[in-house]
Every structure is written in C-alpha cells, then in structure tokens.
C-alpha cells in the first residue's frame, strides 16, 4: 500500500516514543537520575536517526507529513534544544525532593509533538502535532513541584492554550471551506484561483495568527506567568519558551509559505504590524520587570516579534533568516536560563537586585549570563546579532524599511533592559554572603555548550547559512 510507504522516516519520532515509555517505566522502579539519562540518550538516538535521512525529501502518509530540508533544520534545532533542557532539569534538583522523573518523559513526548508539527503538511496532521506538543506543555507546567502554585499556573496556561487552539481551528476551517482541501499546498493552489481581494482569506490569516500567537510566545496575556515565580520550575519554563515556540514557528512558517504566500494577500503588512507590537510591547514589559525570570519570559515576546520580522519576506531570504534566528535564539536563551537556574540554587531568589556581585561570587555563571544576554541584545559577533541582522535584511528586501527601523530601535530598548541586569551582576557589590561554589555537572555542561554555541556562531555562520538556505529551497519547491 502506498499510504504506508516511508513509515520508517518516522524513526526519530518513534525513538522518542519508545524513550518516553522507557522513562515512564523507569520512573516507577528507579526514580533516581536514570530516567533523565535515558531521556538524554533517546534524544541523541533520535538525532542520529534524523541524520540518516539527511537531504532527502520524503512524503509520509499520503503527504500528511513531509520530511524535507526545512523540517530537518527545525528538527535539529528542536532536538538540540530539548537535550539541553533535559540537562537543565537534571541540574535543577533540590535534595530531599522527588527527582521529577516524569518531567523528562513529558519532555520527550512534547518533543515528539514538536517534530510532528514541524513536518506537518496537512491541516489535521498539523493540529495533531501541535496539540500533542501543547498538551504535554500543559502537563509540564502543572506538574506540582514546589508549593501549590504549579496547578494554578498550569490551569491558566491550559485555558489560554485552548483558546488559542480554538481560534486556530476557526482559521483552518475557513481555509478548508474556501478551498475544499486539507493539504496545505493544495489549499494554496485553490486560494490562488479565488482571487486576491477575498476578505475571508484575510480573516483566516488573522485568526491563525491570533491562534498561533500564544504558541509562538507572542502573547503578553501570559497571565499564568504571574504565578510561575513559585510554580513552574525554570527548566520547564525554558522548555516552553524554546522548544514550544520553535515548533510553532516551524509549523507557522510552512503554513504561511504554502498557503498565504501563494495568494495576492498582503500578508506581510499583517505580520509587520504584529511584529512591531510584539517587539515593542515585549521590550517595554521586560523593562518594567524586577524578576530575572520574568524579564527573560517577557523579552522572549520581543524576540518572537523579531523572528516574525523575518517572515515579512518569504520570496527572498526570509525563511533563511528565520532559521538562522531560531538557531541563534535557542542557545542564547538556554545559556541565560541555565545561569539563572545555577544562581538560583545558591541564592534562592530570582529578583534582579539579588544578582548583585554575581561576578565575584560565581564568576562562571555570571559570564554565562552575560554572554546569553549580550547575544539577545544583538552584540556584534555573538549568535543573536546574525539572526537580527538577517531579519532586518529580510524586512528591507520585503519592502518594509520602516520595520527595519523599528527593529533597530528595539535593539536599543532591549539593550536598556539587559544592560540593567549586566550592571547589577557585574558591577554592584554583593548583597548576600553567597557561598562560592560550582554549579552541578549537568548545569555546567548546559551552560558550557550553549555559551560555546553562542560565541562560536560566527565561525559556523557559513554552514548554518547553507543549511538554512536548503530549508528555504525546500519550502519553495
């Protein structure tokens, strides 16, 4: 049967599924560190399985899923990010507490959802992938670990996520109604025939963007964050902010490329407006924060906005820019989050003012935080600067020079908000008598790897650009 051909291309996903089952079984019998080690190994296996399919375009289940270069690039970033998140979860352990072995299992399942979403080329598959990701994220957010606030945070997140899914479904339903197709490329072809001035298409785009906003990490209405100070552990936060939005960006880009760039719809304007709002709003909100965790979360709204800037130009280098941007953002955020976790384990606070004197008590952690934040600002030669630069280039190519201007002004806003943190961490005198010490091995590893990726990004720019270029080509064929 043709439908069931190529099922082996699901090997990375299958490994993840197997790994998750193993982790859940192990978590019952051996709740020590083993489940997390197994999870880490599973991600590595999945990565190897992915590599065997390098540079081939494979259609699975009658075109429901598509394994092309674009999927490959997104998958590689997702898997690398997820592995570092597992390391973070390993390091964020307080003696006397349950190791939270299930955490790793749900992370694997969420990663599985992320891979499916990134390769989905059909509406139902897209929805299944995204929901598999989202449901696991709800569970991760709600897994009560410290205090009773987790459940509340998880519930808030669930409500918001479901609302987003509903909006997305409306959008997809509209597209189906207009075209009578569920495969994304076919929808694009059908819409081209309808004609440019169809308000329903615009409405569909707006609904989809609104539905995706939460998943892309663009909504400032993350009021669940108000409780996460006590509730959601930082590794989970890092996972939601990185893997969650990576997959959403992958899926959204394919949707945008296959469907809307085929029509004469001025989709760029819509995206430019949303990007402007997200960048400016996110940075302003981040400026007002007193907690480093919340600052990182709110600034990720701004970074999401930046990534959207790249999507204003799908014809030339937009997708390349987006992929480079995602590859650059992930290690920058993880580096900063790892530093926050490592420091939080000695100081038990996430207030920015408590970071004072960090450079003298825990210099390694302070440097990692500094590198992560400097990259997020877009300091030249660090990873973030190349992503931002290519995004600006995409905006100019797409005819949105004003958006590039807004982007540069937002670099300034972001610099203001991160420099405040760097100032406290490096220049202020210590508030507390912090014991000097080294963070745990997994945290050291996570910080080292992500900081090295951020610093060495410039050296690897050539290969990264080539890979991202393949991703772009794959979409346009």
């Amino acid at each position: 049967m043709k439908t069931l051909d190529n099922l082996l291309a699901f090997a990375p996903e299958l490994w993840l599924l197997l790994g998750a089952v193993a982790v859940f079984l192990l978590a019952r019998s051996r709740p020590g560190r083993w489940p997390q080690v197994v999870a880490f190994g599973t991600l590595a296996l999945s990565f190897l399985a992915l590599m065997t399919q390098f540079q081939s375009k494979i259609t699975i289940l009658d075109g429901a899923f598509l394994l092309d270069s674009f999927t490959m690039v997104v998958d590689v970033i997702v898997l690398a990010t997820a592995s570092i998140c597992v390391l973070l979860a390993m390091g964020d352990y307080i003696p006397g507490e349950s190791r939270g072995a299930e955490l790793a299992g749900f992370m694997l399942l969420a990663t599985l959802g992320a891979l499916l979403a990134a390769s989905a080329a059909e509406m139902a598959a897209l929805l299944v992938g995204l929901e598999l990701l989202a449901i696991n994220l709800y569970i991760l957010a709600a897994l009560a670990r410290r205090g009773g606030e987790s459940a509340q945070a998880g519930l808030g997140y669930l409500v918001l996520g479901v609302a987003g899914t509903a909006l997305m479904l409306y959008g997809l339903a509209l597209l189906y109604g207009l075209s009578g197709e569920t495969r994304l490329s076919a929808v694009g072809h059908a819409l081209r025939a309808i004609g440019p001035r169809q308000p329903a298409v615009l409405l569909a785009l707006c609904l989809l963007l609104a539905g995706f906003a939460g998943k892309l990490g663009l909504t400032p209405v993350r009021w669940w964050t108000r409780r996460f100070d006590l509730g959601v552990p930082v590794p989970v936060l890092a996972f939601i902010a990185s893997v969650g939005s990576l997959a959403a960006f992958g899926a959204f880009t394919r949707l945008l490329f296959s469907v809307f760039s085929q029509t004469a719809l001025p989709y760029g304007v819509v995206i430019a407006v949303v990007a402007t709002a997200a960048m400016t709003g996110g940075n302003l909100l981040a400026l007002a924060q007193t907690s480093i965790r919340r600052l990182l979360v709110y600034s990720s709204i701004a970074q999401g906005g930046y990534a959207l800037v790249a999507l204003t130009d799908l014809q030339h280098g937009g997708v390349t820019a987006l992929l480079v941007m995602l590859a650059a953002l992930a290690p920058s955020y993880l580096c900063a989050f790892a530093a926050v976790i490592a420091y939080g384990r000695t100081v038990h606070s996430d207030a920015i003012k408590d970071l004072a004197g960090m450079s003298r008590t825990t210099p390694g952690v302070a440097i990692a935080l500094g590198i992560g934040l400097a990259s997020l600002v877009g300091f030249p030669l660090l990873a973030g600067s190349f992503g931002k630069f290519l995004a600006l280039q995409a905006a100019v190519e797409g005819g949105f020079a004003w958006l590039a201007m807004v982007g540069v002004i937002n670099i300034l806003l972001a610099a203001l908000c991160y420099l405040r943190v760097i100032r406290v961490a490096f220049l202020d005198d210590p508030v507390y008598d912090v014991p000097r010490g080294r963070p745990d091995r997994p945290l050291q590893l996570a910080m080292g790897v992500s900081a090295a990726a951020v610093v060495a990004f410039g050296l690897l720019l050539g290969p990264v650009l080539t890979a991202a270029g393949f991703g772009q080509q794959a979409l346009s064929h």
Partner: protein
Amino acid sequence: MFLLSAIVLVPAIAALALLFFPSRTPAEKERIRTVTLAAAALVTALDVVMWYGFRDQSGSFAYEETRSWLPGIGSSYHLGVDGVSMSLLLLSGVLFLAAAFVSNRVREDVKGFFVLLLLLETGVNGSLAALDFFLFFLFWELQVLPLGFLLWRWSANRRAGGAWKLMAVELVGSAFLLLAILILYFKSPTRTFDVATLHNLQVPGSIAGLVFALFFIPFALRLPVVPFHSWFSDAQGEAAAPVAIVLAGIVTRLGAYGLYRVNAGQLQATLHRASGAVAALAVITVFWGAVAAFREDDIRRLVSYLVVSHGGLLLLAVASAAPTALNGGVLLMVADGLAAGMLIVLAAAIAERANTRSIAAMGGLARRMPKGAVLWLLAALAGLGLPGLAGFVGELLIFLGSYPSHRLATSLAILGTLFIAVATLWAFQRIFFGPPIETDRRLRDIGSLELGTSVGLLCLIVLMGILPAILMDSINFSVLTLLSGSGG
C-alpha cells in the same frame, strides 16, 4: 603583512594572557603592570615601524590586509591605514603607553583594570584600522563596555555618574550608527560593508540627509559637542588618571575621526547643506567649553573643558570641509591628545599632593612643586597653541582653512580660543601663585614616574611643533583623496 593585525590584536592577546596571571601579592600585581607596559610598548614600537614604512603618498590605504570573514553577510576582515588613521594610531600607542606608566596608583583589582585597559586599546586601534563598516562597528562597541567598567569600578568617588551617562550616550549613539551603517549596506547593490566600496556609493538625495544625521549624532556625541558634553566632564572628573588620559586624548577623538572619514569625506554634498548648522554647533562648543573652564573649580574637570572646547575647533574644520582645515584638525588632535595627557597626569599628581581638587583651595604651589609648575605651564601653552609647540600649527591651519567659507564662525572661534587660553592661564596663576595653602603635610614635588611621562609627552609635543611635516605630508595626501573621491 601582519603589521596592522598585530597593532590591533596584541593588546587583546595580552589581555587574554593576563587573565591567567595570579594577582594576590604586590609582586604579582607589579608583574601584571609590567606585562601591560610591555604590550603597550610593543604596540607603540609597531606604530613607529608602520609610520617609518609609510612611504606611499598617493593618499590611498597602506598596509592593507583582506581576509575572508563572514562572506555570508558581505563583511570581510579588511584593515588598512591612510595618513589620518596612521597619525591617530601613533597617538593611541603613545597615550596607552603613558596610561600604563601612570597607572601605578591603581591598587584595587589590578588585573581587571589592565585587562580592560588593553581591551580598550584593541577597540580603539581596531576602529582606526578597520576598512569594513561591520568590523568598525564591532571595534567601536568593543570600546564602550571596557570604558564603562573602567569608569565605574576605578572612579574616584564610586558614584560614577559619568559611567552611566557614558553608557546612555553610547547606547543611543550605537543605535544610530548601526542604523546608518545598515542603510548604506542595504543601499549598496552588492550588499557589502567595505568602506572603500561604500565610499563610492551614490546615496540618494532623499535619504542622504537622514544618513548624514545618523552618522553625525554618534560621532558628535563622542566628540563631545555641547550640550551633550556632561558625560565627558563627569567622567573626566571621576576617572582614574590613566583612563582619563586615553578618554580625553584618543577615545573622544575617534568621534572627530568618524566625522572626517564619513561625514566630511563620504557625505560631502550633504555636509555643504548643513555646514551652517555644524559651524554654529562648533562655535557654541568652543565658547561653552571656555566659559565653563572659567567657572570650574575642580582641577580635573578644568582640563576636560579645554578638551571640549578644542573639540569645537575640530568640528569647525568639518563644517568647512576645506583640506587645509581638516589637515589642521588631524594635527590638532595629535597635539591636543599629547597636551591633555600631560595636563591630566599633572592635575592628578597635584590633586593628590594637595589633597584637594578644588582650585580655590590651592595656591602658592609653585614654591613647593617647581617642576610641576613648569611642566603645567608648558602643557597649558602647548594646549593653547603657542608657536613652536604642536597645537599652534593645528589651530592655525584650522582657522586659515575655515575662514574663507565661515568668516563669522571662524572669528568667533578665534575669540573663544583666546578665552580658553585666558582661563587656563588664570587657573595656572591660582594654583601655583598667590597665598600658599596651609597644610600640615610636607608637599612633595611630582615624582619621577609622572615627571618621566610628562617629559616624554612634552618631547613629542616639541617635536611635532618644530617638525609637523613628519606627519603632515601623509595626512595632507589622505585628506585630499578623502575629499576628492566622494560620492554623495
């Protein structure tokens, strides 16, 4: 040739090496200072080699190095010098060496201090030698963080208002600079950051004004121009002497360098339209600096106003865009850097000996510190432009060059220069003559280290005053090339 790479990267390599040195005992701290001195001396020696070998008088770039680097975004590792940047590189080498010499007073966190100072030198030399706008921006940014940290950690009173103002000003400036560079980049058909290629780019008239302003603002903020000069005088008032020397002598002068290279060189047509406003700004800066110098009681801030005021003269040279004036500007930068360095060394020494920075509380120091008095007078005269000392030629050329196009502004600027001369001499009178201060301590004269540094700088000032031609010819050809080949 690796000469320019060495000049740019030797300080950074030394800084990296210093990170692995222990710094607990006084001997270990002394060793760190020795390594810094050696690195700074090596860079200065390489500068001299570069100057000696600079025979090319076509006005084009010498010692060019091009290496493929980030081809994905159209940027390459492209270094090169012309007469203007070569002169400033020499100045940079001398001033950083002087700063390393007089940094024996730094006691706290010695390692951090020297590492940051060396990184700052790489930033300064890199932005002078870079012929690629991306590289230039990188080195420009590389100056900001070390400078901010140096001003913050090793300032006199730990308030460090200057460090904050510097950060704020540089943040705004960097955003504008980045925007300007990106506009040029996106307007170039081949998408390149190369300075020489972009120099020939025809910037469309509609955005030429915008690009001009976007470049002008960061450079003018750095210069600094009135009314945005308070970061500089605050920083000068607070900074440790070595930091103050490089800040006043070369770091701020990079603003003038940028104005010469980009605003006067590349965007000449727009400059002609805006020259009235630029000249007005120049005159205001000259006068404001002079008046503020009259009213200033803090001996360190007094020196800073001399520098601010002369920054106005450099701006006047830009406004005129006349080759003679720009030649004079480059010469004045070198002369001023040396004189200001000397004045700062002496001011810090005097303030330390007298245990006060208030000029009103000083007096009659000439009898206690005769060497200090003589050197201060010579440095002040050099800063004023006494014939035979370096500043004279520079100021004269600026006035000669800018008079034909800006008669009123030039006349006013000459008047302002006289004011600042009077202010400096009046301060000299109040510090060294008049009723002696009551102090229970015995006032020592300046020490051999300060004496050696000041005399070394003075020798260069005299040399430049007698033989300006050692730099002048190469500067002149470069300025002519810069002004002739302009696109927009």
